[in-house]
Structure formats: C-alpha cells, structure tokens
C-alpha cells in the first residue's frame, strides 16, 4: 500500500489518469459516442413496411431535411419560439435577479432563492397540464380577463411561449442573480459619485458587466425551448415544433434515420448559438 502511494506520488500523470479515466470514458463513449451514432444513423434508411432499418449509406434524409418546405417552416417557427421565450425570460428575470442581488436583505435573499427554486420541485407535466386547464375555454384565465372584456390566448403558439417562459424562468433568474451578485456595489456607488443617474449607471456599468450572465441564462432557456415537444402538444393547439417532427418520425413513422437527420437541426442551431455566445465571454460565466 505504501509502495503504491509512493508510485502515485512520484508519477503525477498516473494519478491524473486514474482520476479521469472513468469520467472521460462516460463523456466520450456514452455521451459523445451516442451522439455520433445518432448522426451516423441519419445516413441509413428504413424499410417502410416492416420498419426495419436498412444499413446502406445515403444522403437522402439530410437532403430531405434541408429542402423540405415543411421542415424549414417548422425549424424557423421553433427558433422563433425559443428566441421569444429567451427574451421574455430575460426581461422578467433581470429586475427580479437585481432585486435579489442588490436590494433585498440577506435574509430575504435566501427566501427569494428558495422561492425561485420551488417551482422546479413540481413535475414539468403537472405544470404544463395546470396551464392547459387555466388556458382552456372555461379556464381561470378567461374568467379573470372576462370582466375586462378580454379573452385569453387559447391554445396555440402564444400559449406555448407563455408556458415555456414560465417553465424556464428559474434557469434565467439563477445565473443572472449569480452574475449580479458578483458585481461590486462600489462600482455602482462610483458611478453615482461621478454624476451618473440610474439609467446611465444601468447602461454603462450594470448592463455590460451582467450581459455574460444573461447570455449564460439564455443558453439554458434557448436550448430547453428548442428541444421541447411536450408543452406544445399540451397547450400548442395544432402547432408542431421540431421536437414533434422528430417524435413523429421516431414514433409514428418508425423512421429513426429521418428522425436522426432532423435531430441534427437543433444541434447545428445550438452550435451556431454557442459559437456566437463564446465571443461575449459568457461561457466563462458557467
């Protein structure tokens, strides 16, 4: 035992290798390997009648995904929904996070953090179905808006955006809160001492420093919205998003290769998004 520890002590690289081999194995084989197989299977095709996969490489699926007008429309719709959800979350989360980080007392701050996290304890499906009954024709939304002569959005894309914003809001609040808390109060005071009013301080001091944190939150809300297909089934009316197409191809059509080709679309969108984000330095904030 002593000798073993001696060997390990002398050879730093061995220590490191032993420590990392398991996590690396999981990352490379289970995680990236599965992703590679997924993308590879996009090159196969399916025997329509038996549903068995034909292992002959063809680019047909990828070509179909790029040229098909329906897929294109759904892709843009999905990106639009994800972008809208991200913007709504950012707008709602910023004041909330600012209050938590800079205004609330330390005691209130803890309570607020717990309050933000609490909705995550309930199942995603419970929350989505709760929204379904709230947005239904005789639901509480229409009941509350009724006296004002208004109607709720009903089921559709608007409802989908509202519900997704609700679901992912904590994932925006927490990184923004963490980012704002890191911002020294002295900078704000200095800005004030130099004669800047609240608006100017926000534009010139807070916004640039907190921006990477907002982008970090946006990665969560954007990627989560991009892949979601259940909320839109529950409150989205007749609309479909990319996830529904993939689910339809994997489930209804039993065409896994085409589903894999479609699954490459959100991957590409996310890679582009992350490359853009990297330039802002937000990735350092994770």
């Amino acid at each position: 035992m002593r000798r073993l520890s001696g060997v390990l002590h002398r050879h730093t690289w061995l220590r490191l290798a032993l420590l990392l081999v398991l996590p690396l194995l999981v990352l490379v084989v289970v995680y990236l390997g599965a992703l590679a197989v997924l993308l590879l299977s996009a090159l196969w095709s399916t025997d329509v009648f038996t549903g068995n996969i034909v292992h002959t490489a063809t680019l047909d699926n990828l070509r179909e995904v790029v040229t098909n007008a329906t897929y294109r429309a759904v892709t843009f719709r999905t990106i639009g929904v994800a972008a809208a959800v991200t913007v709504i979350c950012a707008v709602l989360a910023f004041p909330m996070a600012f209050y938590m980080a800079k205004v609330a007392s330390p005691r209130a701050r803890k309570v607020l953090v717990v309050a933000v996290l609490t909705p995550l304890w309930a199942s995603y499906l419970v929350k989505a179905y709760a929204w379904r009954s709230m947005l239904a024709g005789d639901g509480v939304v229409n009941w509350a808006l009724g006296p004002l002569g208004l109607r709720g959005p009903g089921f559709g894309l608007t409802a989908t955006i509202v519900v997704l914003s609700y679901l992912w809001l904590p994932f925006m609040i927490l990184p923004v809160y963490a980012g704002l808390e890191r911002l020294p109060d002295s900078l704000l005071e200095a800005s004030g001492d130099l004669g800047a009013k609240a608006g100017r301080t926000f534009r010139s001091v807070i916004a640039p420093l907190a921006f990477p944190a907002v982008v970090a939150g946006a990665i969560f809300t954007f990627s989560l919205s991009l892949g979601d297909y259940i909320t839109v089934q529950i409150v989205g009316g007749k609309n479909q998003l990319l996830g529904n197409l993939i689910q339809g191809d994997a489930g209804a059509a039993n065409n896994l290769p085409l589903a894999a080709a479609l699954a490459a679309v959100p991957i590409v969108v996310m890679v582009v998004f992350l490359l853009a984000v990297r330039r802002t330095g937000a990735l350092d904030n994770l």
Partner: protein
Amino acid sequence: MISKRLLVLGAAAALALTACGGSSGSTPQAGSGPSGSGNEAAGHFTPPKLSALTKLGTPEGQLNIVAWAGYAEDGSTDPKVDWVTPFEKQTGCQVNVKTAPTSDDMVNLMKTGQYDVVSASGDASLRLIAAGTVEPVNTDLVPNYADVFSGLKLKPWNSVNGVAYGIPHGRGANLLMYNTDVVKPAPTSWSVVFDKNSPYHGKMTAYDSPIYIADAALYLMKTQPDLGIKNPYALDDKQFAAAIALLKEQNANIGEYWSDYTKEVQAFKNGDSVVGTTWQIIANLAQAEKAKVNSILPSEGATGWSDTWMVAAKSPHKTCAYLWMNHIISPKVNAEVAEWFGEAPANSKSCALTVDKNFCATFHADDESYFDQVWYWNTPIAQCLDGRTNVTCKDYGDWTTAWQEIKG
C-alpha cells in the same frame, strides 16, 4: 450565503431533472390506428418462418400487455370495470398493461421485445407479422375461438396464406362527435368537419395520425366520384393530392389534434373542441363527465378497426398469453369489453350476455353488410390495395410525410 457557483450547478441539475421528467411523461403520438378493410387482400409478402405453440405449459406467472385504452381494464378507471383481476386470480399470471394511443406506438412497443401480447389493429398487425415480431397462433389452444363470428376469422389483417396470426377481439367504426349545445343542426355527414367555411372554426378536432388521411379519402370517395377512389387506403398520386388538399383546408379550422384520448375528453368538456372524429369510448367518458356530446356514424360511412390479439414471437410468457386471449374473448368478458369500449364483440355468444339486450344489434355485431361500409384501418403500401396494377399507390411513409406537411 449560498455560493453562486453552487447555485448555477443547482440550476443545471434541476434542469437535467426536469428534462428527464418531461421525456418520461411524453405522450406517444400519432400512429395508425386499427386497420384493414374487410374486403381486400393486403400486399403479398412472405412472413419470416415462425411456428405456433403446440401445447400450453404451466402459466409463467406474468403477462405484459400492450392494448388500446379500455381493452384491458383492471378496475383503476372504474372499480366495476375489471376483467384483469379475475384473470390474475384464475391463472396466477400477474398482468401489466401498457395502453398505446396509436397503432404506430403499438408496433414500436412490441419491437422493444418487452411485451407478450398486443391488441393490434389491421394497420399494425401486418407490419408486426412482416417484421417477425409476432408469431402464428394455434387457435386449437384457444377454445373460445370456435364461437368467434366467421366473418372475422382468417382475414387479410389477421392471417397470412391461411395461417392465423391472432385471435379477433372486436370491431367498430370511428365516429363523429359533436357538442349538442353548439353544433346545430345536428350533423349527419362528415361535411361538418370538411367544409372550409365551417362555423366551428378553431373548435374542430381530428385524430393525430397519418391514418386520418383515410378519413378524408373516404369523404372524397363519396362526394367526388370523379376521383375514382375505391379504397381509402389505396390512393394514387392524384387521389392522394386531393385528400391532402382537403386536409390542409381543414387544418385552418382545427383547434387541436388529439391522439391522447384524455385530451379529447377534456377538450370537449371545456368547450375547446365542439366537433370532430372520436371513438365510442371517448364519447362515453365525456358523457360520464357531463359533457354535452353525442356521437354518430355519418352517412358516408366511416373508417374503423378490427382488432386482433397477437403473441410476441420472443415472449417468455406464452402460456399466460394464450390463457389471456382465451379469457378476453370468452363470452362474458368479450361482452363486457365490447360494451365498455363501444364496439361489436368478436364472440357470437357475447350478444346474449350484454347488459343492453340490443347492444349487438346497435353495433351490428353479426351484420357483415354493415361492416362492408366500414373501412378498417389498413397499412397503405405501394401495391394498390384495391387491386389496381397500372398505378403505384402512396405507401405509409408517404402518408407520414404528408401528415407532417398538413400540420405545417
């Protein structure tokens, strides 16, 4: 003071959790439903060589079932509706039921190899046979098979070349359901869901599956004879395009599509849907929840299903599977299932045992001429099912792609 880094980590973990919760709760989706018209031969193919069980062994103590909602009730929906528990007591086979909303889901579930029997509709059965997922059934080991209506035995959707691949369960038609307060006058035709100037804009619903294209084709078959549609599951390019165009028009009026039956019950109850296609059991459940709905078989006839219990080729619980098939089509149980689900029973002796003595007459249990008007769900394939050889028909892959296109 909670560390910020920890917070972000917590957020990431919570995110992973939610993501898992989401996917496990996913509602499976659009498939094809029951199938197969009574009157045509399915495509010609040679199924993998598998042989049926020759004799029953000792019950294995477990049975995993894939079924349509309402087919294998264990009292959890309604304590009075339970034909699983008596079976478990009688045979010692512990039953696990997985309900599937569409035929495609059934095919996929069976392909996992974790299930022993399935209540396959005609559009699933042939695919299961062709893929070797299910094996032939020795009908001699199912004593109640003798009492099954002859009109259901050895049909193109439950047999290949005279070899039985399953035990008939029951059959019925996809109906038109409407809200009696809103939809006036009461509809008698599918035109109420296919008229593009429908007053029920935004409140219409339809089955979320490519097989629903057949409903449009059936409507065109009756209303536009020029198209020459002879079978709603055998559509050439022109006929297919006409059906797709009709469904795209309909899409403008659709509020939401359904495949999860609880979603449709809720939508009709809340008034979010007022007219659309349905199953009898959905109408029953909606009425039980005090929704003001009625369901009818429209004048054009309808698509429908004829279901078959099939045994997985790799099932480790085949004795339990055979005992289950015999149990579910026994006169009393088949009568209970048929009345609960709202379909015609397969067992001819069931008609004497229904609570409603007119049940078999209402559902035309032994009326073959009635079922000639019902187009059982079938799997569309390139060789036209109506026997045409001068054209190629659209296969199910085309139907699936088109269905996504219709929904936009």
